[in-house]
């Protein structure tokens, strides 16, 4: 395969940016911010090149890069994007500069470290989405914990330490078992290729061809280990309790990235690993997972409804929204899976926007308590309007992005499990309840607290952030085929990969697409 460097550049450009940042003096806050932003924007622009030359009809990985990294066991530096990961990468590179812009004024101490962490985080997250080697994937998966840990722990709010430790421990608990599962899979693959392989496409192909013998129990266990890691990340009820804390305590940029991108790593993982690698287990567990997803949808929404802390409310809303995504994935319908992928993007944009909105309030009042606000429409009309757009996007108003994803998920799920979809649809009602109720309490009514009377409306910087997001919401809501067209092939491939032939004699050949890779992996 032709080796390009685009993905490497996209992955490591932020890291290069941090090196440049480290050269600046700690006190040069303004320059640090500018340099970081320039890096972030450049990263975004460069990542747009991924779209160029991306063939929507090709469901396999594109822009692939493959270099040997660790010889024994053979871990390769294998990168690539397909329709599923492409936009997640773009989402990451899109949200990061916005998060930087949002931190422009609110981060006043340890500015340099802050932006370094943000950029390192970006590298880690992009790495997760583009890794095609299981070990490499895990590598990035864990790496990204460190900057997030610092982001919450240093620049967070009162209970930041509790929150950040909880976040990391929860995540590690899940992911370490995934590491075990990855190694197990590697060992199993040793039966089909000499020495085994971590290469995802190869393993996938071998599994599908029935060349890697996996017993029923083994498949369940492996699936469980992978799924647990992802379910924690998503987070799926009842593993979600790290999320409200982490979100609430994180600084705005942290929450944006956390909600916008990190949670997607969980659902991405399910789609990329759980389904194609362990289809039988996935099918077996699907009813339970769907049940949990539905509980999460309703539960998250109900709990969000009664929160008094605005940020916590948004956090719980993520539990609810991600429930839809999980539901869509485990409905195994082409429509719902595409909807799920699309909803990942939507949630990133709209919840990101909500966190930014909350952050702007926090910058002004240093509180997230809903009761501390009220009547902000009077001093901050533009803000109120954009906040409303974010809410509407989140509650799935047609013509804004949230609707398309939710609709497709439910539509697809309904085809397979009408009752599940019907139950999940109540989430649509509840999201309107909690979002509008909180919006009302913050924005409407007379100004009751004197301090709020003179709050400045959002300035140019903040307007740029929110208008950009609003434009994207609208665009994604109206022109969804621009995205789904590229998502479609890959997400249908996932479902095809779930098909397992009857156990075949040993001569079963590899699918043509995987053959060159398999041969490569065989070489020392």
């Amino acid at each position, binding site marked *: 395969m032709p080796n390009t460097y685009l993905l490497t550049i996209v992955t490591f450009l932020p890291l290069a940016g941090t090196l440049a940042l480290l050269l600046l003096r700690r006190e040069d806050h303004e320059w640090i911010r500018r340099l970081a932003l320039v890096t972030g924007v450049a990263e975004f622009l460069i990542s747009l090149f991924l779209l160029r030359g991306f063939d929507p009809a090709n469901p396999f990985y594109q822009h692939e890069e493959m270099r040997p990294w660790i010889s024994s066991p053979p871990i390769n530096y294998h990168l690539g994007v397909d329709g599923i990961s492409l936009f997640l990468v773009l989402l990451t590179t899109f949200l990061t500069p916005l998060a930087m812009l949002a931190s422009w004024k609110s981060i006043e101490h340890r500015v340099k470290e802050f932006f370094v962490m943000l950029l390192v985080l970006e590298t880690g997250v992009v790495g997760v989405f583009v890794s095609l080697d299981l070990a490499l994937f895990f590598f990035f998966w864990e790496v990204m914990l460190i900057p997030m840990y610092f982001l919450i722990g240093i620049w967070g709010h009162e209970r930041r330490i509790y929150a950040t430790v909880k976040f990391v*421990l929860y995540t590690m608990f899940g992911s370490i078992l995934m590491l075990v599962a990855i190694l197990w899979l590697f060992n199993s693959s040793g039966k089909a290729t000499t020495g085994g392989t971590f290469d995802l496409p190869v393993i996938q192909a071998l599994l599908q061809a029935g060349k890697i013998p996996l017993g029923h129990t083994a498949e369940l266990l492996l699936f469980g280990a992978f799924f647990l890691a992802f379910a924690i990340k998503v987070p799926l009820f*009842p593993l979600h309790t790290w999320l409200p804390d982490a979100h609430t305590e994180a600084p705005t940029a942290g929450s944006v990235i956390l909600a916008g991108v990190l949670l997607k790593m969980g659902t991405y993982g399910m789609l990329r690993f759980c389904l194609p690698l362990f289809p039988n287990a996935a099918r077996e567990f699907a009813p339970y997972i769907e049940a949990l997803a539905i509980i999460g949808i309703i539960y998250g929404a109900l709990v969000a409804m*009664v929160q008094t802390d605005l940020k916590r409310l948004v956090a719980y809303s993520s539990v609810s929204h991600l429930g839809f995504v999980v539901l869509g994935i485990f409905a195994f319908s082409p429509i719902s899976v595409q909807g799920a992928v699309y909803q990942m993007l939507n949630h990133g944009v709209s919840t990101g926007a909500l966190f930014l909105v909350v952050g702007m309030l926090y910058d002004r009042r240093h509180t997230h308590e809903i009761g501390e606000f009220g009547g902000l429409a009077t001093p901050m009309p533009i803000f109120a309007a954009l906040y409303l757009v974010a809410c509407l996007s989140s509650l799935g108003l047609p013509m804004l992005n949230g609707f398309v994803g939710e609709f497709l998920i439910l539509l*697809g799920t309904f085809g397979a499990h009408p009752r599940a979809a019907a139950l999940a649809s109540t989430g649509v009602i509840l999201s309107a309840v909690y979002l509008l109720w909180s919006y009302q309490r913050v924005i409407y009514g007379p100004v009751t607290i004197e301090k709020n009377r003179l709050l400045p409306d959002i300035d140019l910087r903040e307007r740029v952030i929110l208008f950009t997001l609003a434009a994207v919401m609208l665009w994604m809501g109206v022109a969804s085929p621009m995205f789904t067209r590229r998502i*479609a092939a890959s997400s249908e491939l996932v479902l095809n990969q779930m098909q397992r032939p009857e156990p075949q004699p040993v001569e079963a050949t590899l699918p043509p697409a995987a053959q060159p890779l398999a041969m490569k992996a065989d070489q020392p």
Partner: protein
Amino acid sequence: MRLLDHLWIIPALPLLGAALNGLFGRRWPKRTVDSVAVGSSGLAFLAVLEVIREFSRLPADQIPWTRSYFDWIVAGDFHAAFALQVDQLTVVMLLVVTGVGWLIHIYSTGYMAHEGGYTRFFACMNLFLFFMLVLVMAANFVVMFVGWEGVGLCSYLLIGFYYLKKSASDAGKKAFIVNRIGDFGFMLGMFLIFRTFGSLDMQTVFGAAALMAPEWSGGVITAIALLLFLGAIGKSAQVPLYVWLPDAMEGPTPVSALIHAATMVTAGVYMVARSHVLYEHAPLAMMVVAIVGAITALYSATIGLVQTDIKKVLAYSTVSQLGYMFLACGVGAFSAGIFHLMTHAFFKGLLFLAAGSVIHALGGEQDMRRMGGLRKRIPWTYWTMLVATLAIAGAPGFSGFFSKDAILEAAAAGQYGNLIFHILGLLTAGLTAFYMFRLLFLTFFGNSRFDEQQVHVHESPRSMLIPLAALAVLSLAGGWVAAPAYWGGTDRFEKFLNPVFVAGEKKSATALSGPFWDVFGKAMSESRAEVALVFAGIAVLVALIGFLIAWWFYIRRPQTPERLAQSFAAPYKLLLNKYYVDELYDAVIVNPLKWLSTRVLWRAVDDGVIDATVNGVAREAQRIGGRARQVQSGNTRSYAAWVIVGAVLFIAILLWPV
């Protein structure tokens, strides 16, 4: 260039207006703002006229005229284009929406002249028109849903227009959420349609449904129809989801007129009529529609009897009239329903605008107990309102007379008709006449009951009066398009709509000689004109009785109502408090849900179980750690003992089980 090829221009015009006003209006003078708003809606009206002109020349086989503009949602087998269509039904709706909408825009320039948030108001109004047009022009259910939800949004924004008032923002929120409950049904309906037909494109769906044998389609189609009807219940404020509409009167009066009387709330009726093919395949659903409509009509009329807020009376009246329309649909008289929808848009819009004018004249007063004697002081308003009242009460010749009459007739003699429906309808008609004249008498007759020193009654500006006049004309004459034979007309309206409604009926009509096919139906088929005349006569009689009672109570013996209220204290209170439905919902749904969420889900499950488990594991680990540290007593002898333990252990394991 044919406008028919560019149908998108119609909704795009108000959207453009909304965008311009929304983005830049804050810096513009009021004149520019209202020019943009009125201009864009007016242009839309003109565009509609042009489209109708072109439409009328289309050959029949090109109707419905569909144009698809871009792919909106594509995934798997699912494909939804942003497609618009025009057929006869759409034409009626387009005329109502843009026509009445434009008039109300004009009216608003006067009514809102002194209000804050002028730009916001017009931006939202224009946006509303956009969504409403999308709703009525949509060629598939998803696009319809865009309009469906969009009008809900605008309704939310406009109800909560006076956001400083908590009651206003509450009402807006309530409207949106209750609507969402309906939308939930709509969505499920769509899912089921897609599951059944593999498409959400209306022509495809209806075409497939029309070909279905009734016995096969029964269950699924009924379910689809009922789910869609749930959406209609929410949007059109039927029992039990009507509660948001009376509260919605918190919005500015033009909003009430446009959204909550003339257009948005009728979207449910439109949708049911649009999906008539499905309903006709689901007799059970038809019956449900009819029952809900009839009950709502009567039920809310009773509440309207005693309300004192002028707009609330109109609101309940709207709910009641919407019930009428559903009744019509439910008994299979879709064109009658649509006809009533149109006339209702005229006279109810007018009623609201006139009420607004009254309120305007009294400087914001809405309580009828503090009105009275305005007949001479604001004559324009009085006269127009009188026309509207006569229309709604069903005075012969007025628009409401024809439409209501058509419904009552169908209720009794329609394919799905039933005497009970007819009687309920008649009762409602009587009540309607009563409370409308009560309103008229309390407002314009008798002595003024407001403080003359404080209030300077003044007639409204011309910008408000012109729309009043225009609507009065329509209320008066708008019904003639459907004048039945005995009136000398030819029922042109029904014939116009026939291509829409009959197309699907052809196949199923024979199968529908069910239990509702009663004496009246048979009689009617024999001598239609005569029977219709009898029906009309009865209806007028009932309305007259209502009028007379109102006259007796409020003109002749003004003390009567109070005495009655005292002697029937309990029923009166029940009515005054709207059957305590809001309280009931609070007690049964809202509060338990809040309690459940806070106490059980958040505090008990989240904090108490899940998080407690997590933290408990952490604590337990630390406790174990503490134990492990205990070993580290610092005493070397103990350490030596541990070494011995280890040695014994190692030996034991290694020798096991030698």
